[in-house]
């Protein structure tokens, strides 16, 4: 064991070993089981990167950016009086991510209020070659929202104004620092809702949601941000303000630039304002919490019988329920089952929706697809049922150190990864749980151990990515790449695609000051 450990450390340290294919983990299982979709040359290329996976989620060395000088601080203080923060206590929380898994060493936190201020900050930093880490609510799960070294943190916390809302079209424009929950509350008074909803809603900023193309619980019904965001105002790396803040549903005039920035994780520009299409608030919302032996057929029945009123289809397994009961003292509303599904319907007519829902429930109960369940129409009960799904992340935090994986696969195959990892890891892992947006084919695989365990991590990664890649899945369905997964991009994208991404990055941010060390793999930047 000890010899093996020393060997792997030597392996990562000495770069000349990287081309020895005999040591490459990926090489041992060339995809003979599935169709050979990738050209042989690609496997060779992937081998090279698989080799580096021991160290690839760790940070690369610091790039030769300038360091912040007193003169820089004077400039910031003059530009943002009282909002250029250097107090280490305040900086502490902005330097650490929500999972407390990565920590940066930034000494400057800037809180602009306007797009103009952001523009001047970036223009200055670009000239001075100072790296910048944009930060919204700091709720990201892949280490993309905090600095790696001493990058200046550019926070949208004070850019929280709602600009306009048109209650006929449902189009909302607001600054990037608006908290998602505040926007939801504002819209609810006008009888509308935000098209996305996620567990972090009390803290996340809409700008951050857009720059990470956040998914969430309503994606099944309202689609992704790529469809609901109508326009963006973005400040580019050199300070130029790109105003694409259209509020039009249809606008086919030239290349759709906003799509570049959606999901770019702050590496191509800083989003300063968003215009988004909001759906009407449903008059009738029902939530059903069901227990079953398997989820796939229920999903089919659901789609068929509930059709257009289905607004969410989430699942959690028995291990998740145990964690909720153990750490958060929540009670299981129904009898114990291997799988639990949360179904939400949203529509404009209570009687119509309830009838559909009751027919569906009767059908699945009598056909024994579902073993037990409960339904809620009152807000308080709905919230209680949703918390069974929304608070799993919180419960996991209490269970120890969590290894999080966010995988996209076909609906039938999804849970296989969980059972597979459970077998593979056995006693080495404390808990292996699966939950997620099963309706979107998105699994959140989480593994816990009492504390950070490099041996366990080595058993999980890159195996979990290889498994996903083998079944043509995505290694990051909605969490993005950030710092932690940047080098695994090749498991889901071809080298040509990644090279082109690099070209676009070089064009928009030649000095690479925007959120460096994130999203794109180390060999591209």
């Amino acid at each position: 064991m000890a010899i093996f450990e020393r060997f792997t450390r030597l392996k990562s340290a000495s770069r000349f070993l990287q081309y020895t294919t005999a040591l490459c983990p990926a090489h041992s299982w060339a995809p003979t089981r599935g169709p050979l979709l990738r050209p042989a040359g690609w496997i060779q290329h992937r081998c090279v990167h698989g080799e580096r996976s021991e160290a690839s989620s760790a940070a690369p060395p610091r790039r030769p950016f300038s360091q912040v000088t007193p003169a820089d601080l004077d400039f910031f203080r003059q530009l943002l009086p009282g909002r250029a923060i250097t107090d280490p206590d305040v900086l502490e929380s902005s330097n650490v991510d929500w999972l407390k898994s990565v920590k940066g060493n930034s000494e400057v936190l800037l809180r602009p209020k306007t797009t103009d201020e952001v523009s001047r900050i970036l223009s200055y930093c670009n000239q001075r070659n100072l790296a910048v880490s944009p930060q919204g609510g700091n709720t990201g799960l892949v280490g993309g929202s905090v600095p790696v070294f001493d990058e200046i943190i550019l926070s949208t916390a004070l850019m929280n104004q709602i600009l306009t809302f048109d209650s006929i079209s449902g189009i909302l424009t607001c600054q990037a620092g608006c908290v998602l929950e505040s926007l939801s509350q504002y819209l609810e008074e006008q009888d509308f809702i935000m098209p996305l909803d996620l567990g972090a809603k009390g803290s996340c900023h809409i700008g951050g949601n857009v720059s990470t193309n956040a998914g969430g619980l309503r994606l099944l019904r309202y689609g992704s941000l790529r469809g609901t965001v109508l326009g963006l105002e973005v400040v580019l790396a050199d300070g130029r303000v790109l105003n694409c803040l259209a509020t039009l549903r249809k606008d086919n005039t030239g290349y759709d630039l906003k799509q570049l920035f959606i999901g770019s994780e702050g590496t191509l520009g800083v989003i300063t304002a968003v215009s988004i299409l909001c759906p009407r608030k449903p008059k009738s919302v029902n939530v059903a919490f069901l227990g079953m032996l398997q989820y796939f057929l229920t999903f089919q029945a659901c789609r068929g019988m509930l059709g257009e009123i289905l607004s969410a289809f989430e699942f959690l397994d028995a291990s998740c329920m145990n964690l909720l009961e153990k750490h958060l003292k929540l009670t299981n509303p129904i009898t114990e089952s291997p799988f639990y599904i949360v179904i939400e319907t949203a529509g404009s007519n209570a009687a119509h929706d309830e009838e559909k829902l009751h027919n569906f429930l009767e059908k699945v109960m009598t056909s024994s697809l579902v073993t037990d369940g409960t339904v809620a129409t009152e807000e308080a009960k709905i919230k209680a049922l949703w918390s069974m799904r929304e608070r799993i992340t919180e419960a996991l935090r209490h269970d120890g150190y969590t290894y999080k994986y966010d995988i996209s696969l076909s609906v039938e195959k999804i849970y296989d990864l969980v059972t597979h990892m459970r077998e593979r890891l056995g006693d080495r892992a404390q808990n292996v749980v699966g939950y997620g947006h099963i309706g979107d084919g998105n699994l959140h695989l989480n593994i816990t151990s009492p504390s950070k365990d490099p041996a366990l991590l080595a058993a999980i990664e890159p195996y979990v990515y290889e498994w996903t890649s083998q079944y043509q899945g995505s290694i990051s369905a909605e969490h993005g790449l950030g710092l932690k997964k940047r080098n695994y991009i090749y498991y889901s994208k071809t080298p040509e695609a990644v090279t082109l991404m690099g070209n676009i990055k070089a064009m928009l941010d030649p000095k690479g000051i925007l959120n460096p060390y994130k999203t794109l793999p180390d060999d591209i930047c």
Partner: protein
Amino acid sequence: MAARVLVGVKRVIDYAVKIRVKPDNTGVVTDGVKHSMNPFCEIAVEEAVRLKEKKLVKEVVAVSCGPQQVQETIRTALAMGADRGIHVEVSGKDYDSLGPLQVSKILAALAKKEEASLIILGKQAIDDDCNQTGQMTAALLDWPQGTFASEVAVEGDKLKVIREVDGGLETIKINLPAVVTADLRLNTPRYATLPNIMKAKKKKITNVKPGDLGVDLTSRLEVLRVDEPPQRQAGVKVETVEDLVGKLKEAGRI
């Protein structure tokens, strides 16, 4: 032992909903607003069902007074385990002016008619906060009452009730038949599970008119005006202690 339990359930505006006052200040907006069972009534139903599960009572009857929509509330009680329901039809102006006095007269009449030996109600409704129906019903029937119950135990032909009072907890023993009103900590109501929801569809709800029970619904109360509570004034943030002292002086506080 108590053969039949009567449980009163009231249909109220869901407690999570933001209440709006009607523009003419005669009441609150109820049209199109989400309604549900009064939370204390849920606790009452849960307690009755638990007594039945312990085989201490034979039948649980859920009662509600109001228009057609209260049948939903009765169905919820049936889904939680009540055996049958009684819908006392009250609508229009009569429903608007329906209050504890009229409801307690109805419940008293029903208790006699159904030969109930225990009535469990919520301690108060979250819309009017009256906290009177249980007490008035007991008085009309001349039955003992155990109000604000946080624990109920059957001891032979008596009930031991632990009541939540300002000074702490009071334990009393009362003879059956009796009226008990449920307080928050009496129990945690169960979720109505699907099999029970399906069964509830087949359970019986009988319709009764207040006239049939010999009850006069005239109200002795007249609502003059309904207003929203005054808006809370925003506070002011100060930067320094001097500012704070200055502002307090300005406001005449020091």
